[in-house]
Protein backbone atom coordinates (compact mmCIF):
# COMPACT_ATOMS: atom_id res chain seq x y z
CA UNK A 1 0.00 0.00 0.00
CA UNK A 2 1.18 3.46 -0.86
CA UNK A 3 0.27 5.01 2.44
CA UNK A 4 2.18 2.37 4.33
CA UNK A 5 5.25 2.74 2.14
CA UNK A 6 5.24 6.41 2.76
CA UNK A 7 5.04 5.89 6.49
CA UNK A 8 7.92 3.49 6.46
CA UNK A 9 10.19 5.82 4.59
CA UNK A 10 9.28 8.98 6.42
CA UNK A 11 10.18 9.10 10.07
CA UNK A 12 8.08 12.16 10.77
CA UNK A 13 4.83 10.58 9.78
CA UNK A 14 5.42 7.58 12.00
CA UNK A 15 2.79 6.68 14.52
CA UNK A 16 2.94 7.95 18.09
CA UNK A 17 5.13 5.88 20.39
CA UNK A 18 5.27 5.16 24.07
CA UNK A 19 8.86 4.82 25.30
CA UNK A 20 9.52 1.65 27.27
CA UNK A 21 12.39 3.23 29.19
CA UNK A 22 14.32 0.00 28.66
CA UNK A 23 17.85 0.88 27.49
CA UNK A 24 18.24 -0.23 23.90
CA UNK A 25 14.67 -1.30 23.27
CA UNK A 26 13.60 2.24 22.49
CA UNK A 27 16.48 2.47 20.00
CA UNK A 28 15.59 -0.65 18.08
CA UNK A 29 11.89 0.26 18.03
CA UNK A 30 12.82 3.84 17.08
CA UNK A 31 11.04 5.31 20.03
CA UNK A 32 9.07 2.67 21.87
CA UNK A 33 5.89 0.65 21.49
CA UNK A 34 2.93 1.87 19.46
CA UNK A 35 1.14 4.31 21.77
CA UNK A 36 -2.45 3.45 22.51
CA UNK A 37 -2.21 0.03 20.89
CA UNK A 38 -1.53 -3.51 22.01
CA UNK A 39 1.81 -5.21 21.41
CA UNK A 40 2.22 -8.96 21.50
CA UNK A 41 5.26 -10.21 23.39
CA UNK A 42 5.91 -13.86 22.66
CA UNK A 43 8.56 -16.13 24.09
CA UNK A 44 9.21 -19.49 25.66
CA UNK A 45 9.17 -20.19 29.37
CA UNK A 46 11.87 -18.21 31.18
CA UNK A 47 12.56 -15.94 28.23
CA UNK A 48 11.94 -12.80 30.26
CA UNK A 49 8.45 -11.81 29.06
CA UNK A 50 7.15 -10.92 32.48
CA UNK A 51 10.25 -8.98 33.47
CA UNK A 52 10.19 -7.00 30.25
CA UNK A 53 6.50 -6.24 30.60
CA UNK A 54 6.85 -5.21 34.23
CA UNK A 55 9.80 -2.97 33.32
CA UNK A 56 7.59 -1.31 30.73
CA UNK A 57 4.93 -0.63 33.37
CA UNK A 58 7.31 0.49 36.10
CA UNK A 59 9.32 2.77 33.82
CA UNK A 60 6.07 4.18 32.47
CA UNK A 61 4.84 4.93 35.98
CA UNK A 62 8.11 6.31 37.27
CA UNK A 63 9.50 8.21 34.34
CA UNK A 64 6.75 8.98 31.89
CA UNK A 65 3.88 9.69 34.25
CA UNK A 66 1.85 6.86 32.74
CA UNK A 67 0.30 4.69 35.45
CA UNK A 68 -0.13 1.04 34.56
CA UNK A 69 -2.44 -1.87 35.24
CA UNK A 70 -1.14 -5.41 35.37
CA UNK A 71 -3.52 -8.31 35.07
CA UNK A 72 -1.46 -11.28 36.13
CA UNK A 73 -2.87 -14.71 35.42
CA UNK A 74 0.02 -16.82 36.62
CA UNK A 75 1.89 -15.18 39.44
CA UNK A 76 0.45 -13.67 42.58
CA UNK A 77 1.27 -10.10 43.47
CA UNK A 78 3.79 -11.04 46.17
CA UNK A 79 5.57 -13.55 43.95
CA UNK A 80 5.82 -10.96 41.22
CA UNK A 81 7.08 -8.30 43.61
CA UNK A 82 9.79 -10.67 44.81
CA UNK A 83 10.81 -11.57 41.27
CA UNK A 84 11.39 -7.99 40.20
CA UNK A 85 12.93 -6.75 43.43
CA UNK A 86 16.32 -7.88 42.09
CA UNK A 87 15.87 -5.37 39.27
CA UNK A 88 15.41 -2.62 41.80
CA UNK A 89 11.66 -2.33 41.37
CA UNK A 90 9.43 -1.86 44.38
CA UNK A 91 5.97 -2.88 43.20
CA UNK A 92 4.29 -2.51 46.57
CA UNK A 93 5.41 1.08 46.84
CA UNK A 94 4.19 1.88 43.32
CA UNK A 95 0.85 0.30 44.16
CA UNK A 96 0.55 2.40 47.31
CA UNK A 97 1.29 5.51 45.28
CA UNK A 98 -1.46 4.51 42.84
CA UNK A 99 0.99 4.42 39.97
CA UNK A 100 0.48 0.75 39.51
CA UNK A 101 -2.42 -1.57 40.06
CA UNK A 102 -1.97 -5.31 40.01
CA UNK A 103 -4.94 -7.64 39.79
CA UNK A 104 -4.24 -11.33 40.12
CA UNK A 105 -6.75 -13.23 38.02
CA UNK A 106 -7.11 -16.81 39.08
CA UNK A 107 -9.08 -19.28 36.98
CA UNK A 108 -9.09 -22.91 38.07
CA UNK A 109 -10.81 -25.41 35.85
CA UNK A 110 -11.28 -27.80 38.76
CA UNK A 111 -13.59 -25.33 40.48
CA UNK A 112 -15.61 -24.47 37.41
CA UNK A 113 -18.77 -25.99 35.99
CA UNK A 114 -19.86 -24.61 32.62
CA UNK A 115 -23.64 -24.41 32.46
CA UNK A 116 -24.30 -22.56 29.23
CA UNK A 117 -23.42 -19.41 27.33
CA UNK A 118 -21.20 -16.80 28.92
CA UNK A 119 -18.83 -13.99 28.09
CA UNK A 120 -15.78 -12.45 29.76
CA UNK A 121 -17.51 -9.26 30.80
CA UNK A 122 -16.27 -9.87 34.34
CA UNK A 123 -12.70 -9.50 33.11
CA UNK A 124 -13.58 -6.38 31.11
CA UNK A 125 -15.25 -4.78 34.12
CA UNK A 126 -12.29 -5.62 36.36
CA UNK A 127 -9.88 -4.12 33.86
CA UNK A 128 -11.97 -1.02 33.30
CA UNK A 129 -12.36 -0.53 37.03
CA UNK A 130 -8.61 -0.83 37.54
CA UNK A 131 -7.83 1.57 34.68
CA UNK A 132 -10.22 4.19 36.07
CA UNK A 133 -8.97 3.76 39.61
CA UNK A 134 -5.45 4.99 38.82
CA UNK A 135 -5.94 6.73 35.48
CA UNK A 136 -3.87 4.10 33.69
CA UNK A 137 -2.29 4.66 30.31
CA UNK A 138 -0.50 1.30 30.14
CA UNK A 139 -1.76 -2.23 30.52
CA UNK A 140 -0.08 -5.57 30.68
CA UNK A 141 -1.85 -8.92 30.41
CA UNK A 142 0.41 -11.72 31.62
CA UNK A 143 -0.38 -14.37 30.33
CA UNK A 144 -3.92 -14.20 29.11
CA UNK A 145 -3.64 -17.57 27.37
CA UNK A 146 -3.93 -19.10 30.82
CA UNK A 147 -7.68 -18.60 30.38
CA UNK A 148 -7.64 -21.43 27.85
CA UNK A 149 -6.59 -23.72 30.65
CA UNK A 150 -9.43 -22.61 32.88
CA UNK A 151 -12.37 -22.35 30.53
CA UNK A 152 -13.34 -24.99 28.01
CA UNK A 153 -15.26 -23.07 25.39
CA UNK A 154 -12.45 -21.92 23.10
CA UNK A 155 -14.96 -20.41 20.67
CA UNK A 156 -16.17 -17.98 23.31
CA UNK A 157 -12.62 -17.31 24.50
CA UNK A 158 -11.33 -16.44 21.05
CA UNK A 159 -14.22 -14.12 20.30
CA UNK A 160 -13.80 -12.44 23.67
CA UNK A 161 -10.05 -11.99 23.35
CA UNK A 162 -10.55 -10.40 19.96
CA UNK A 163 -13.08 -8.08 21.59
CA UNK A 164 -10.65 -7.37 24.45
CA UNK A 165 -7.79 -6.28 22.21
CA UNK A 166 -10.14 -4.04 20.23
CA UNK A 167 -11.45 -2.68 23.53
CA UNK A 168 -7.91 -1.82 24.65
CA UNK A 169 -7.30 0.03 21.41
CA UNK A 170 -10.57 1.92 21.72
CA UNK A 171 -9.49 3.11 25.14
CA UNK A 172 -6.08 4.15 23.85
CA UNK A 173 -4.18 1.82 26.16
CA UNK A 174 -0.56 1.07 25.32
CA UNK A 175 -0.63 -2.60 26.15
CA UNK A 176 1.70 -5.56 26.31
CA UNK A 177 0.09 -8.95 25.91
CA UNK A 178 2.41 -11.81 26.69
CA UNK A 179 2.07 -15.21 25.08
CA UNK A 180 3.86 -18.53 25.05
CA UNK A 181 5.67 -19.46 21.87
CA UNK A 182 3.83 -22.22 20.03
CA UNK A 183 5.18 -25.18 18.14
CA UNK A 184 3.28 -24.91 14.90
CA UNK A 185 2.21 -21.31 15.11
CA UNK A 186 3.89 -18.26 16.51
CA UNK A 187 2.02 -18.37 19.80
CA UNK A 188 0.29 -21.33 21.33
CA UNK A 189 -3.20 -19.88 20.90
CA UNK A 190 -2.52 -17.98 17.70
CA UNK A 191 -2.90 -14.58 19.38
CA UNK A 192 -0.78 -13.03 16.62
CA UNK A 193 -3.95 -13.09 14.52
CA UNK A 194 -5.61 -10.65 16.90
CA UNK A 195 -2.76 -8.39 17.92
CA UNK A 196 -1.51 -6.95 14.69
CA UNK A 197 0.11 -3.66 15.56
CA UNK A 198 3.41 -4.91 16.89
CA UNK A 199 4.89 -8.30 17.64
CA UNK A 200 8.07 -8.82 19.64
CA UNK A 201 9.73 -12.17 20.11
CA UNK A 202 11.99 -13.18 22.98
CA UNK A 203 14.29 -16.13 22.93
CA UNK A 204 16.57 -17.79 25.44
CA UNK A 205 19.07 -20.31 24.18
CA UNK A 206 22.25 -21.93 25.27
CA UNK A 207 25.13 -22.32 22.84
CA UNK A 208 28.45 -23.77 23.90
CA UNK A 209 27.20 -23.66 27.48
CA UNK A 210 26.75 -19.92 27.29
CA UNK A 211 23.24 -18.66 27.62
CA UNK A 212 22.06 -15.75 25.55
CA UNK A 213 18.75 -13.95 25.55
CA UNK A 214 17.68 -12.37 22.32
CA UNK A 215 14.94 -10.01 21.29
CA UNK A 216 13.55 -9.39 17.83
CA UNK A 217 10.93 -6.99 16.52
CA UNK A 218 8.95 -9.35 14.31
CA UNK A 219 6.47 -6.79 13.15
CA UNK A 220 5.74 -3.14 13.74
CA UNK A 221 2.94 -1.73 11.69
CA UNK A 222 3.47 1.82 10.53
CA UNK A 223 7.01 2.14 11.78
CA UNK A 224 10.56 1.38 10.88
CA UNK A 225 12.48 -0.74 13.33
CA UNK A 226 15.70 -2.66 13.74
CA UNK A 227 15.21 -6.10 12.22
CA UNK A 228 18.08 -8.05 13.74
CA UNK A 229 18.01 -10.31 16.70
CA UNK A 230 19.49 -8.27 19.50
CA UNK A 231 20.96 -9.77 22.61
CA UNK A 232 19.51 -8.55 25.84
CA UNK A 233 20.43 -9.00 29.44
CA UNK A 234 18.63 -9.12 32.68
CA UNK A 235 21.14 -7.57 35.03
CA UNK A 236 21.21 -5.72 38.27
CA UNK A 237 20.01 -2.54 36.59
CA UNK A 238 17.07 -4.20 34.94
CA UNK A 239 16.71 -5.16 31.32
CA UNK A 240 19.29 -3.97 28.86
CA UNK A 241 18.97 -4.46 25.15
CA UNK A 242 22.21 -4.21 23.26
CA UNK A 243 23.33 -2.39 21.26
CA UNK A 244 22.69 0.65 23.31
CA UNK A 245 24.16 3.15 20.90
CA UNK A 246 25.28 1.41 17.78
CA UNK A 247 22.79 2.62 15.21
CA UNK A 248 24.31 5.99 14.48
CA UNK A 249 27.72 7.17 13.39
CA UNK A 250 27.53 10.57 14.96
CA UNK A 251 30.28 10.78 17.51
CA UNK A 252 32.63 13.73 17.52
CA UNK A 253 36.12 13.48 16.11
CA UNK A 254 38.26 15.71 18.31
CA UNK A 255 41.46 17.10 16.82
CA UNK A 256 43.23 16.85 20.17
CA UNK A 257 46.13 14.43 20.33
CA UNK A 258 47.36 12.38 23.23
CA UNK A 259 50.74 10.84 23.80
CA UNK A 260 51.45 7.14 23.44
CA UNK A 261 53.69 7.43 26.48
CA UNK A 262 56.77 6.99 24.31
CA UNK A 263 58.13 10.18 22.73
CA UNK A 264 59.74 8.18 19.95
CA UNK A 265 56.45 6.50 19.09
CA UNK A 266 54.69 9.86 19.23
CA UNK A 267 57.29 10.96 16.73
CA UNK A 268 56.20 8.20 14.38
CA UNK A 269 52.62 9.43 14.71
CA UNK A 270 53.13 12.90 13.30
CA UNK A 271 55.00 13.90 16.43
CA UNK A 272 51.91 14.08 18.60
CA UNK A 273 50.54 10.61 19.27
CA UNK A 274 47.01 9.31 18.80
CA UNK A 275 43.84 11.32 18.37
CA UNK A 276 41.73 11.57 21.45
CA UNK A 277 38.59 9.43 21.28
CA UNK A 278 40.17 7.25 18.61
CA UNK A 279 40.72 3.51 18.70
CA UNK A 280 44.11 1.90 18.62
CA UNK A 281 44.87 -1.68 17.75
CA UNK A 282 48.09 -3.15 19.04
CA UNK A 283 48.94 -6.52 17.56
CA UNK A 284 51.81 -8.88 17.94
CA UNK A 285 52.86 -12.37 18.85
CA UNK A 286 53.39 -13.53 22.40
CA UNK A 287 56.05 -11.71 24.41
CA UNK A 288 56.57 -8.85 21.99
CA UNK A 289 55.65 -6.12 24.44
CA UNK A 290 51.99 -5.34 23.87
CA UNK A 291 51.17 -5.10 27.55
CA UNK A 292 54.27 -2.99 28.15
CA UNK A 293 53.26 -0.58 25.39
CA UNK A 294 49.77 -0.41 26.88
CA UNK A 295 51.27 0.25 30.28
CA UNK A 296 53.30 3.15 28.88
CA UNK A 297 50.16 4.58 27.37
CA UNK A 298 48.26 4.29 30.64
CA UNK A 299 51.19 5.59 32.69
CA UNK A 300 51.36 8.73 30.55
CA UNK A 301 47.60 9.27 30.73
CA UNK A 302 47.58 8.98 34.52
CA UNK A 303 50.56 11.32 34.73
CA UNK A 304 48.41 13.88 32.88
CA UNK A 305 45.77 13.34 35.56
CA UNK A 306 43.42 11.37 33.30
CA UNK A 307 41.40 8.42 34.43
CA UNK A 308 42.16 5.00 32.98
CA UNK A 309 40.23 1.76 32.97
CA UNK A 310 42.24 -1.36 32.18
CA UNK A 311 40.44 -4.57 31.25
CA UNK A 312 42.64 -7.58 31.87
CA UNK A 313 41.60 -10.94 30.50
CA UNK A 314 44.73 -12.93 31.08
CA UNK A 315 46.53 -11.81 34.20
CA UNK A 316 45.55 -10.56 37.59
CA UNK A 317 46.14 -6.84 38.22
CA UNK A 318 48.76 -7.68 40.86
CA UNK A 319 50.71 -9.87 38.47
CA UNK A 320 50.51 -7.32 35.70
CA UNK A 321 51.62 -4.47 37.95
CA UNK A 322 54.52 -6.54 39.29
CA UNK A 323 55.70 -7.34 35.77
CA UNK A 324 55.45 -3.75 34.69
CA UNK A 325 57.26 -2.53 37.80
CA UNK A 326 60.16 -4.78 36.83
CA UNK A 327 60.20 -2.98 33.49
CA UNK A 328 60.28 0.36 35.26
CA UNK A 329 56.63 1.30 34.83
CA UNK A 330 55.02 1.83 38.22
CA UNK A 331 51.30 1.60 37.93
CA UNK A 332 50.41 0.98 41.54
CA UNK A 333 50.77 4.65 42.40
CA UNK A 334 48.01 5.47 39.91
CA UNK A 335 45.77 2.81 41.39
CA UNK A 336 46.42 4.32 44.83
CA UNK A 337 45.57 7.77 43.52
CA UNK A 338 42.33 6.47 42.06
CA UNK A 339 43.32 7.28 38.50
CA UNK A 340 43.76 3.71 37.32
CA UNK A 341 41.11 1.03 37.72
CA UNK A 342 41.60 -2.58 36.77
CA UNK A 343 38.80 -4.85 35.72
CA UNK A 344 40.10 -8.39 35.53
CA UNK A 345 37.98 -11.31 34.45
CA UNK A 346 38.24 -14.68 32.78
CA UNK A 347 36.68 -14.31 29.35
CA UNK A 348 34.88 -17.62 29.43
CA UNK A 349 33.07 -16.68 32.58
CA UNK A 350 30.24 -15.04 30.66
CA UNK A 351 28.80 -14.91 27.20
CA UNK A 352 29.91 -12.10 24.95
CA UNK A 353 26.89 -9.94 25.69
CA UNK A 354 27.48 -10.21 29.38
CA UNK A 355 31.03 -9.07 28.79
CA UNK A 356 29.80 -6.13 26.82
CA UNK A 357 27.39 -5.22 29.57
CA UNK A 358 30.04 -5.63 32.25
CA UNK A 359 32.34 -3.41 30.25
CA UNK A 360 29.62 -0.82 29.68
CA UNK A 361 28.90 -0.88 33.34
CA UNK A 362 32.55 -0.47 34.31
CA UNK A 363 32.99 2.40 31.84
CA UNK A 364 29.91 4.15 33.18
CA UNK A 365 31.06 3.72 36.75
CA UNK A 366 34.69 4.74 36.28
CA UNK A 367 34.04 7.34 33.57
CA UNK A 368 37.56 7.00 32.15
CA UNK A 369 39.45 9.05 29.57
CA UNK A 370 41.43 6.05 28.43
CA UNK A 371 40.44 2.39 28.18
CA UNK A 372 42.72 -0.55 27.49
CA UNK A 373 41.46 -4.02 26.64
CA UNK A 374 44.24 -6.57 27.06
CA UNK A 375 43.99 -8.79 25.19
CA UNK A 376 40.94 -8.49 22.99
CA UNK A 377 41.94 -11.87 21.54
CA UNK A 378 40.66 -13.69 24.57
CA UNK A 379 37.19 -12.35 23.99
CA UNK A 380 37.26 -13.75 20.49
CA UNK A 381 37.28 -17.28 21.79
CA UNK A 382 33.92 -16.69 23.42
CA UNK A 383 31.87 -16.15 20.31
CA UNK A 384 31.77 -16.54 16.57
CA UNK A 385 33.60 -14.01 14.37
CA UNK A 386 30.39 -12.19 13.53
CA UNK A 387 29.39 -11.96 17.17
CA UNK A 388 32.78 -10.65 18.21
CA UNK A 389 32.79 -8.09 15.47
CA UNK A 390 29.35 -6.81 16.32
CA UNK A 391 30.22 -6.71 19.99
CA UNK A 392 33.36 -4.75 19.28
CA UNK A 393 31.51 -2.35 17.03
CA UNK A 394 29.07 -1.67 19.81
CA UNK A 395 31.81 -1.24 22.36
CA UNK A 396 33.79 1.10 20.16
CA UNK A 397 30.79 3.23 19.32
CA UNK A 398 29.98 3.43 22.98
CA UNK A 399 33.52 4.50 23.86
CA UNK A 400 33.72 7.02 21.04
CA UNK A 401 30.46 8.64 22.02
CA UNK A 402 31.92 9.12 25.47
CA UNK A 403 35.13 10.57 24.06
CA UNK A 404 37.24 7.72 25.39
CA UNK A 405 40.52 6.81 23.73
CA UNK A 406 40.74 3.04 23.55
CA UNK A 407 43.64 0.69 23.03
CA UNK A 408 43.04 -2.94 22.15
CA UNK A 409 45.89 -5.38 22.47
CA UNK A 410 45.57 -8.38 20.20
CA UNK A 411 47.63 -11.50 20.31
CA UNK A 412 48.53 -13.02 16.96
CA UNK A 413 49.89 -16.47 16.47
CA UNK A 414 53.34 -16.56 14.91
CA UNK A 415 52.21 -18.95 12.20
CA UNK A 416 49.61 -16.53 10.90
CA UNK A 417 50.25 -13.50 8.80
CA UNK A 418 49.49 -10.81 11.31
CA UNK A 419 47.86 -8.39 8.97
CA UNK A 420 45.31 -10.79 7.59
CA UNK A 421 44.26 -12.32 10.88
CA UNK A 422 43.16 -8.95 12.09
CA UNK A 423 40.91 -8.34 9.10
CA UNK A 424 38.02 -8.96 11.43
CA UNK A 425 38.53 -5.94 13.60
CA UNK A 426 41.17 -3.74 12.02
CA UNK A 427 38.68 -1.75 9.98
CA UNK A 428 37.09 -0.62 13.21
CA UNK A 429 40.38 0.82 14.38
CA UNK A 430 41.73 4.27 13.67
CA UNK A 431 45.37 3.46 14.38
CA UNK A 432 47.19 0.19 14.18
CA UNK A 433 50.58 -0.49 15.69
CA UNK A 434 52.28 -3.79 15.04
CA UNK A 435 54.96 -5.31 17.23
CA UNK A 436 57.06 -8.30 16.20
CA UNK A 437 60.09 -10.25 17.33
CA UNK A 438 62.71 -11.97 15.18
CA UNK A 439 65.67 -14.07 16.01
CA UNK A 440 68.77 -12.40 14.62
CA UNK A 441 71.97 -14.25 15.34
CA UNK A 442 71.84 -15.27 18.97
CA UNK A 443 69.32 -12.72 20.20
CA UNK A 444 65.73 -11.76 19.84
CA UNK A 445 65.24 -8.47 18.17
CA UNK A 446 62.01 -6.58 18.60
CA UNK A 447 60.51 -4.08 16.27
CA UNK A 448 57.36 -2.10 15.76
CA UNK A 449 55.75 -0.08 13.06
CA UNK A 450 52.62 1.96 12.50
CA UNK A 451 50.53 0.12 9.97
CA UNK A 452 47.89 2.77 9.75
CA UNK A 453 46.78 5.87 11.51
CA UNK A 454 43.77 7.59 10.06
CA UNK A 455 43.84 11.30 9.53
CA UNK A 456 47.49 11.99 10.32
CA UNK A 457 50.94 11.77 8.86
CA UNK A 458 52.71 8.78 10.20
CA UNK A 459 56.04 7.10 9.73
CA UNK A 460 56.45 4.13 7.46
CA UNK A 461 59.58 3.01 9.19
CA UNK A 462 60.04 -0.27 11.03
CA UNK A 463 61.72 0.66 14.30
CA UNK A 464 63.70 -1.62 16.54
CA UNK A 465 63.15 -1.36 20.25
CA UNK A 466 64.50 -2.76 23.49
CA UNK A 467 63.21 -3.47 26.94
CA UNK A 468 65.20 -1.45 29.44
CA UNK A 469 64.93 -0.93 33.18
CA UNK A 470 62.74 2.08 32.46
CA UNK A 471 60.46 0.48 29.94
CA UNK A 472 60.54 0.30 26.19
CA UNK A 473 63.10 2.31 24.31
CA UNK A 474 63.04 2.76 20.58
CA UNK A 475 66.42 2.60 18.89
CA UNK A 476 67.38 5.63 16.83
CA UNK A 477 65.70 5.99 13.52
CA UNK A 478 67.71 4.77 10.58
CA UNK A 479 65.56 6.83 8.31
CA UNK A 480 67.69 9.57 6.84
CA UNK A 481 64.74 11.64 5.78
CA UNK A 482 64.09 13.29 9.09
CA UNK A 483 60.66 14.03 10.47
CA UNK A 484 58.71 10.81 10.16
CA UNK A 485 57.41 11.17 6.66
CA UNK A 486 54.83 9.06 4.97
CA UNK A 487 54.65 8.45 1.28
CA UNK A 488 51.65 10.69 0.97
CA UNK A 489 51.06 13.17 3.72
CA UNK A 490 47.51 13.05 4.90
CA UNK A 491 45.53 15.31 7.07
CA UNK A 492 41.98 15.28 8.20
CA UNK A 493 39.99 14.06 11.10
CA UNK A 494 40.21 10.73 12.76
CA UNK A 495 37.56 8.29 11.79
CA UNK A 496 36.40 10.21 8.75
CA UNK A 497 38.50 9.40 5.78
CA UNK A 498 39.71 5.85 5.89
CA UNK A 499 42.97 6.75 4.26
CA UNK A 500 44.60 3.62 2.98
CA UNK A 501 47.68 2.83 4.95
CA UNK A 502 50.68 1.52 3.17
CA UNK A 503 53.00 -0.65 5.08
CA UNK A 504 56.70 0.06 5.07
CA UNK A 505 58.77 -3.06 5.41
Amino acid at each position, binding site marked *: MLATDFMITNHRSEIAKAPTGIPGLDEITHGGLPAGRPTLLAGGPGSGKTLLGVSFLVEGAQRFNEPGVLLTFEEKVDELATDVRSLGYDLHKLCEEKKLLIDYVHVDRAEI*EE*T*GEYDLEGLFVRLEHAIKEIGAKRVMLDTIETLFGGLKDTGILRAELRRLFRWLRDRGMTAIITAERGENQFTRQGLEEYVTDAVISLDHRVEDQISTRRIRIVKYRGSTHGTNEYPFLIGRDGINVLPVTSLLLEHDAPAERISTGLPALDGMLGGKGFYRASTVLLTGTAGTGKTTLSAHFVDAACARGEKCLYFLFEESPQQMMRNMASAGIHLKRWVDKGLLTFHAERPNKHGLENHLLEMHHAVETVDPDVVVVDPITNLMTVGSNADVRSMLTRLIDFLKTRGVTAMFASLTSSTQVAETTEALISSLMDSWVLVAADTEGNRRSRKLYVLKSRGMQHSDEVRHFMFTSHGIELLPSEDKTEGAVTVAGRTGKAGRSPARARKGK
Partner: protein
Amino acid sequence: MIPTEQYVLRLYVTGMTPRSTRAIKCVRDVCEQHLMGQYDLEIIDVYQTPSRLVQDQIVAIPTLVKCTPAPIRLMVGDMSNRERLLTGLGLPLDD
Protein backbone atom coordinates in the same frame (compact mmCIF):
# COMPACT_ATOMS: atom_id res chain seq x y z
CA MET B 1 -30.80 -36.56 50.11
CA ILE B 2 -31.99 -33.55 52.06
CA PRO B 3 -29.35 -30.87 52.50
CA THR B 4 -29.07 -29.62 56.03
CA GLU B 5 -26.46 -26.92 55.66
CA GLN B 6 -27.28 -23.34 54.72
CA TYR B 7 -26.34 -22.48 51.14
CA VAL B 8 -24.67 -19.13 50.57
CA LEU B 9 -24.81 -18.27 46.88
CA ARG B 10 -23.73 -15.24 44.89
CA LEU B 11 -24.79 -14.73 41.32
CA TYR B 12 -22.84 -12.24 39.22
CA VAL B 13 -24.73 -10.76 36.29
CA THR B 14 -24.51 -7.79 33.93
CA GLY B 15 -27.65 -5.73 34.34
CA MET B 16 -30.76 -7.15 32.72
CA THR B 17 -29.31 -8.74 29.62
CA PRO B 18 -31.26 -11.76 28.34
CA ARG B 19 -28.44 -14.07 29.38
CA SER B 20 -28.39 -12.65 32.90
CA THR B 21 -32.16 -12.76 33.22
CA ARG B 22 -32.11 -16.38 32.11
CA ALA B 23 -29.43 -17.24 34.65
CA ILE B 24 -31.33 -15.57 37.48
CA LYS B 25 -34.49 -17.49 36.61
CA CYS B 26 -32.71 -20.86 36.37
CA VAL B 27 -30.90 -20.41 39.68
CA ARG B 28 -34.11 -19.31 41.46
CA ASP B 29 -35.98 -22.32 40.07
CA VAL B 30 -33.36 -24.75 41.34
CA CYS B 31 -33.16 -23.08 44.74
CA GLU B 32 -36.94 -23.05 45.20
CA GLN B 33 -37.16 -26.67 44.21
CA HIS B 34 -34.19 -28.11 46.14
CA LEU B 35 -33.20 -25.65 48.83
CA MET B 36 -36.44 -24.14 50.09
CA GLY B 37 -35.69 -22.10 53.20
CA GLN B 38 -32.09 -23.15 53.23
CA TYR B 39 -30.42 -20.73 50.93
CA ASP B 40 -29.22 -17.18 50.80
CA LEU B 41 -28.90 -15.93 47.21
CA GLU B 42 -27.34 -12.57 46.49
CA ILE B 43 -27.55 -11.19 42.97
CA ILE B 44 -24.75 -8.79 42.08
CA ASP B 45 -24.75 -6.49 39.10
CA VAL B 46 -21.05 -6.14 38.25
CA TYR B 47 -21.61 -2.75 36.63
CA GLN B 48 -22.85 -1.41 39.97
CA THR B 49 -20.17 -2.94 42.19
CA PRO B 50 -17.15 -3.82 40.07
CA SER B 51 -14.89 -4.14 43.11
CA ARG B 52 -16.69 -7.32 44.19
CA LEU B 53 -15.42 -9.21 41.16
CA VAL B 54 -11.93 -9.50 42.59
CA GLN B 55 -12.86 -11.21 45.86
CA ASP B 56 -14.65 -14.07 44.10
CA GLN B 57 -12.21 -14.18 41.15
CA ILE B 58 -14.93 -13.58 38.58
CA VAL B 59 -13.95 -13.50 34.94
CA ALA B 60 -16.94 -14.89 33.09
CA ILE B 61 -20.51 -13.60 33.32
CA PRO B 62 -22.88 -14.96 34.48
CA THR B 63 -21.14 -16.80 37.31
CA LEU B 64 -22.80 -18.38 40.31
CA VAL B 65 -20.52 -18.85 43.30
CA LYS B 66 -21.36 -21.46 45.89
CA CYS B 67 -19.59 -20.12 48.99
CA THR B 68 -20.93 -22.71 51.38
CA PRO B 69 -21.15 -25.58 51.85
CA ALA B 70 -17.57 -26.40 50.93
CA PRO B 71 -16.03 -26.92 48.47
CA ILE B 72 -16.33 -23.57 46.72
CA ARG B 73 -17.63 -24.01 43.20
CA LEU B 74 -18.12 -21.62 40.31
CA MET B 75 -20.95 -22.25 37.89
CA VAL B 76 -20.25 -20.34 34.71
CA GLY B 77 -22.84 -19.65 31.99
CA ASP B 78 -26.54 -18.87 31.64
CA MET B 79 -27.40 -21.91 33.83
CA SER B 80 -29.55 -23.38 31.08
CA ASN B 81 -27.79 -26.72 31.54
CA ARG B 82 -29.69 -27.75 34.64
CA GLU B 83 -27.77 -30.96 35.16
CA ARG B 84 -24.44 -29.16 35.35
CA LEU B 85 -25.91 -26.56 37.67
CA LEU B 86 -27.16 -29.27 40.03
CA THR B 87 -23.81 -31.08 39.90
CA GLY B 88 -22.00 -27.88 40.70
CA LEU B 89 -24.25 -27.22 43.67
CA GLY B 90 -23.81 -30.80 44.84
CA LEU B 91 -27.52 -31.50 44.55
CA PRO B 92 -29.17 -34.71 43.34
CA LEU B 93 -30.18 -34.73 39.69
CA ASP B 94 -33.88 -34.50 38.80
CA ASP B 95 -35.67 -37.78 38.23
